[in-house]
């Protein structure tokens, strides 16, 4: 799984424009630092013509030109250029060039992301921590929060937009090529702020439509005996009080929807890869993995636990 969050490796027009501005800022900064650094060093070590009393007080004139040129004129020119570049970039990235073909609603929770595709294709699709988008077209992201302020950031696609309770912020981005782009919550939101990743999966429009269709299906009823036992464990343990599974009478809305859990790459907002062992470990004692999260420690017998995981693995 790709796991870079490098700002400088942009993969879409918004981030690309921001990175161009970024390189300008980096280059100007380095030049300014080097020039001033050299001026300090040379000013310190250059030899003076008069070798008289080192402590003699001098008052030669002409220094004011330094301030006028170095302190006012040159910085004013650099800053004006930088400001023009900045505002140009801001304007160019503020709105998408064409109407977005897809709108995704992203809701920040402590500490995971709920992801909704309204009305698509027959009813709203709900998933978590993984945002699938078609490549080559702008995507509209509507952000809201279920609790505190979070910030939504997929560095290779766009800068941050805060996720603020009582306010709906809208942003957009576009992925130019297929891939998985990792993001994270970047506004400190409490104990597990560090473990609140989001992934954008950019795929061809056909693959995206296919995925959306699959996500809108209800969960399959398990046929494997072990998984059927697992469904019983799921129901008996009241997992549905917090988690929803369409087709299994589980309607909870506290934790992430699990209808297609097995189709996701990670669990616990990127804290773990979605493997059988990790799922079992998470259910048995999530508090050891991500202390403070809302998932209680489930005291299940090893047999029940394995059966439950088998059931969850059928939720493709």
């Amino acid at each position, binding site marked *: 799984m790709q*796991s870079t969050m490098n700002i400088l490796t942009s993969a879409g027009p918004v981030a690309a424009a921001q990175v161009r501005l970024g390189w300008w800022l980096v280059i100007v900064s380095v030049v300014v630092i080097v020039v001033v650094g050299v001026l300090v060093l040379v000013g310190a070590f250059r030899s003076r013509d008069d070798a008289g009393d080192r402590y003699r007080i001098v008052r030669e004139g002409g220094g004011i030109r330094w301030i006028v040129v170095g302190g*006012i004129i040159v910085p004013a020119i650099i800053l004006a250029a930088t400001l023009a570049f900045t505002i140009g970039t801001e304007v160019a990235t503020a709105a998408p060039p064409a109407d977005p073909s897809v709108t995704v609603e992203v809701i920040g929770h402590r500490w995971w992301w709920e992801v909704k595709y309204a009305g698509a294709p027959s009813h709203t699709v709900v998933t978590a921590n993984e945002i699938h988008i078609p490549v080559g077209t702008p995507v509209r992201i509507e952000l809201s929060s279920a*609790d505190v*302020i979070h910030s939504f950031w997929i560095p290779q696609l766009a800068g941050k937009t805060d996720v603020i309770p009582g306010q709906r912020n809208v942003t957009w981005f576009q992925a130019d090529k297929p891939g998985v782009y990792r993001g994270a919550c970047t506004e400190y939101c409490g104990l597990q702020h560090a473990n609140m990743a989001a992934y954008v999966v950019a795929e061809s429009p056909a693959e995206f439509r296919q995925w959306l269709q699959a996500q809108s299906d209800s969960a399959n009823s398990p046929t494997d005996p072990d998984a059927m036992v697992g469904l019983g464990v799921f129901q008996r343990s009241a997992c549905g009080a917090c988690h929803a599974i369409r087709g299994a009478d589980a309607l909870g809305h506290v934790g992430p929807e699990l209808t297609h859990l097995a189709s996701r790459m990670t669990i616990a907002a990127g804290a773990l890869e979605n493997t059988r062992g990790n799922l079992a470990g998470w259910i048995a004692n999530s508090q050891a993995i991500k202390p403070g999260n809302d998932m209680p420690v489930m005291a299940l017998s090893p047999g029940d636990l394995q059966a439950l995981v088998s059931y969850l693995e059928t939720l493709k």
Partner: protein
Amino acid sequence: MATTTVPGQLPERLTRIWETAPGLYGVLASVDHKTIGRRYLVTSIIFLLLGGGEAAVMRLQLSHADAHLLSPEAYNQLFSMHGITMIFWYAAPVLSGFSNYLWPLMLGARDMACPRANALSYWTFLMSGVFLYTSVLVGQVPDRGWFAYAPLTEAAYSPGLNMDFYAIGLTFLSVSTSVGAVNFIVTLFKTRAPGLSVNRLPIFVWGTLTTSFSVLLATPALTAACVMLFLDRRFGSHFFDPGHGGSALLWQHMFWSFGHPWVYIVVLPAMGMVSDLIPTFCRRPLVGYTLVALATVSTGILGFGVWVHHMFATGIPATASSFFSAASMVITIPSAIAVFSWLATMWHGRPIFKTPMLFAAGFIVLFVVGGVSGVATAANAYDLQLTDTYFVVAHLHYVLIGINVFAVMAGFYFWLPKITGRMMSEWLGKLNFWLMFLGFGVGFFPMHTLGLMGMPRRIYTYSSGFGWGWQNMWVTVGAYVFALGVVVFVINFFWSLAMGEPAGPNPWDAPTLEWAMSSPPPDYNFEHIPIVGSRHPLWEDRLDEGTGRTVFGGPVLDHARDTFGTTPLDAEPQEILRMPEDTAWPFVLSLSILVIAYGLVFGAMWLAVLGVIGLFVSIVGWLLPSHEPTIPAEV
């Protein structure tokens, strides 16, 4: 006014008038600005060491991926207390310490204009810090970061007393900063030596003056926000609760409309210190004094118009965002003026690299790095990428360490000989500088690249897949080298107390008034109040500065605790001000506020009421006319 002349030789008479009583009472009752200044310096350095210790533990946790040294609770408490301690209880108070100690000496006065308020300012600073750290004793430490965004800080998401300590602690501290600011402003406009017109003030004085106005205008926003937060948490109001008609963003606007001016509050006096010591070591007056003074004041003013650059990602419209982006770039110009004034002073002077100058030169470089990274974060379109990453952590440490700590170190090496009467070791000083400068570069520069590589700030752990590990190890190693530099400073300080060469009045051959008396200065500062004739009273004979000559054998004022009251701009003598006697009431008043604070935070209303009673009693006691004769009787 009494007219009896106190008998005895002049210095003895003045000492008897100005000295503080011995014993515990004297400790609690002293209103001497030098005592208060020293206490401010020592206390703020203790907070620096506390905040540094917190950072040192954090850096162990972050030194490699997937570390398990600290629990997330512990990490969150450490980074919060590190920020709160450094920004509120170290960075500004240490400058207040310098200002308190140096202002009357630089201004040719016998004390600050309001010595008792000065004592109050110190005691509330100390006790608010004691209050804040009580949270550690009861195990409910603030853990929401130093800017504590609502609604995460509301009771629903932060149960426990943690954030109550934050809200009440900062409210408490604001008493100290506000009282201190009023005192500086009154002192400046009222008690300068005759002839010390505003165009002759040291730049350091300009810096503290500017920030004192900023404190008065900015602090109320923070205090109000903290009170509102406390009301939300404990009394059921909903200021920051969007679920009940409040606003989550309101906190950010209030906090940053305080917070950004505060950034300048913790750097402008520090820049002033450097502006004053560079000329001493370059053996010439500062180039562009007037421009630098104006730049200082305009930075303070512009500092109120840039706060939204902390909030570019909150969804504000592009037009508003671009306005604040532009304002944040404009504020670079006054800083550039200062930088090129220092450079010109070096180039047109002949620098002598004693330890203070070494720190000042390092400061210039770090100042520029912190400045250009500030421009990068001011560019709103790119800040959307940079904000809340380690790039910002790098930027703010270049500002707060580069511009505050390095200037403070320069200031200590420069002025401690005046304060203690002993020289610091040059050898240890240079070791101190290089450990701090190299440690800082190794430790904090990689934070820029970590930010560009996408590392968010305020995460207690990270996985190994991002390639952040080795740079974080660098950061940790560099931070420890830097910390070693701080240790060397402490050693050097104690070494100088024990074995330092006596400093004499003016060890650096500096030009300003604070070097005109013995080191350490006598209780009464100046035997004769100087009549100031120029910007460089101690260099006049060697500068062709026209006809201005300072008179050091001027008026004595030895009847009681008297100092000159002068006109605000030209410092023409107007009156003789009778200064108050020592008193322990400011201490009792501060103690009463501490009791109120404990009462509020622990929900013990009887305790709060007790504190309020103490508060009123101490105000009355403070204001009662003194029955003591103002002139000490002949023994």
